[in-house]
């Protein structure tokens, strides 16, 4: 590649990153604005952060969202790991086409459709079985777990597919039963993928507005729902403050996790390059 062309490419890249990050930086800068107008700078202030932390509705919703996200991430990691294992290792069983479809479809399914369909399911179940009674945290948790499972399954399946299968065979050859192979060999090796799956499910749940709006009930308002109803009425520096906190927290945890995973990966993969594939 000529230097001129690679220069052009990287200028383009720089503009791309600017497009992605400038709006976020503006958002963060104006969270420290003195004025209520989020677009005119009127001096530095942290008063909106103070106001944010006095907003009980916001705090309750945040707590609700965090609890749901934690439960979702945990359940989705368990279910998604099983689903990923099935996709990567179980080959063709009866109904595997349908199973693969139910894993990929949630990745792209428009949220309004997922939300509506789950709500109608819960209403019908309540009519027929008497459960779930009304809607709330449990129904949101079920909804979030369902679509997060698909994402976790994809993460796990692609990790399992690049794992040398003879490592599992070796364990079995040395006397470990299949279930033991999974827990003693496979799981520890793919632990980083499990962690990224968990984090992914956590943020997916924390971020969801549309599906939660359909399946939530009174008393189970999540943070995105509060933010949305506030944003609909117009811009507010309090939301900027909240956004700044979220962005900073997410960036820090992503960077830490990313560096950690990259290091684990490098360590694990570097010597692999000397090993040839099967003939």
């Amino acid at each position, binding site marked *: 590649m000529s230097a001129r062309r690679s220069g052009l490419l990287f200028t*383009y890249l720089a503009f791309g990153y600017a497009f992605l990050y400038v709006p976020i930086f503006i958002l963060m800068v104006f969270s420290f604005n003195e004025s209520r107008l989020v677009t005119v700078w009127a001096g530095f202030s942290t008063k909106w952060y103070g106001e944010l932390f006095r907003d009980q509705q916001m705090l309750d919703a945040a707590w609700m969202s965090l609890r749901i996200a934690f439960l979702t991430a945990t359940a989705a990691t368990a279910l998604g790991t099983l689903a990923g294992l099935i996709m990567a290792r179980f080959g063709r069983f009866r109904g595997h086409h349908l199973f693969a479809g139910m894993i990929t479809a949630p990745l792209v399914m428009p949220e309004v459709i997922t939300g509506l369909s789950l709500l*109608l399911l819960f209403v019908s179940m309540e009519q027929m079985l008497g459960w779930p009674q009304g809607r709330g945290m449990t129904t949101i948790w079920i909804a979030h*777990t369902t679509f997060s*499972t698909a994402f976790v399954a*994809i993460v796990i399946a692609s990790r399992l597919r690049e794992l040398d299968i003879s490592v599992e065979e070796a364990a079995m050859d040395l006397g470990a039963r299949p279930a033991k192979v999974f827990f003693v060999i496979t799981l520890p090796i793919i632990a980083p993928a499990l962690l990224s799956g968990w984090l992914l499910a956590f943020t997916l749940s924390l971020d969801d507005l549309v599906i939660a709006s359909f399946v939530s009930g009174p008393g189970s308002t999540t943070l995105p729902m509060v933010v949305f109803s506030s944003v609909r009425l117009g811009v507010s520096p309090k939301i900027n403050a909240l*956004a700044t906190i979220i962005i900073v927290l*997410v960036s820090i945890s992503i960077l830490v996790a990313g560096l950690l995973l990259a290091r684990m990966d490098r360590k694990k993969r570097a010597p692999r390059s000397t090993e040839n594939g099967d003939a």
Partner: protein
Amino acid sequence: MIRKFWQRIRPGHGSVIAIPYLWLLLFFLIPFIIVLKISFAEMQLAMPPFTDLTEYAEERLQFNVNLGNYLYLLTDDLYVSSYFASLKIAFISTVLCLLIGYPMAYAIARSSPAVRTGLLMLIVLPSWTSFLIRVYAWIGILKNNGLINNALMAMGIIDEPLHILHTNFAVYIGIVYAYLPFMILPLYANLVKLDYSLLEAASDLGARPWKTFLTVTLPLTKAGIIAGSMLVFIPAVGEFVIPELLGGPETLMIGKVLWQEFFNNRDWPVASAVAIVMLLLLVVPMVLFHHYQNKELE
């Protein structure tokens, strides 16, 4: 081959499959059947606000299948034009994402491995922060007294503010901004696997750079292009938050229509019919996505 073996001898193999399988059947597949069922029902003022499809009257089981909701969708101009507008907006946004995302993915894939991880992380990072907040960020920028208008007026380029927010233009910006990472990731995954010596071979054989790109790079990254495009197009068709916050009264998108039908009009049967028609429109893109996604994984 080992897979077959695991399948044969693994004790409790069935139950390993059963847990996620049943969960997905119950909470992903069956709900669509219920949506289909309710789309044939009629609205009523009760809880739940729709009629039963089956009725036991005059000692016979009767089916009350009602196609009225679908006829209503066809006859009311609002729905038909909303579907078309959604497909159009999603399509144009996808093309824009591809045009912006492909060179970016290419540049990242061509950078040195040490930098690559960092660059990629910077692409992913925004999508891990809140979607809602990233859409919200544009309100402050695009408003009549927002940053762009203030800046342009301060520079004396315009006298009165441009009307950008609450237009389709703002919706395009929002969709491209929010979905760009989903385009870049599969493209990158494809481009990084591309053997660079193939490009060198092509240019060694006399192909000009542009020709090399069209005849070698592009066909070899087809799977990534399709996967990325579907990851943008399909959810964008049903997008609600972006048209709601950035779009205006003229923005008719079907996700927004469904939301209003459900929450404002409380007409669950019509909302269900809207969802079913949307699903039918998206079947082909979804099958395409499924096909290339699976290929990518194998």
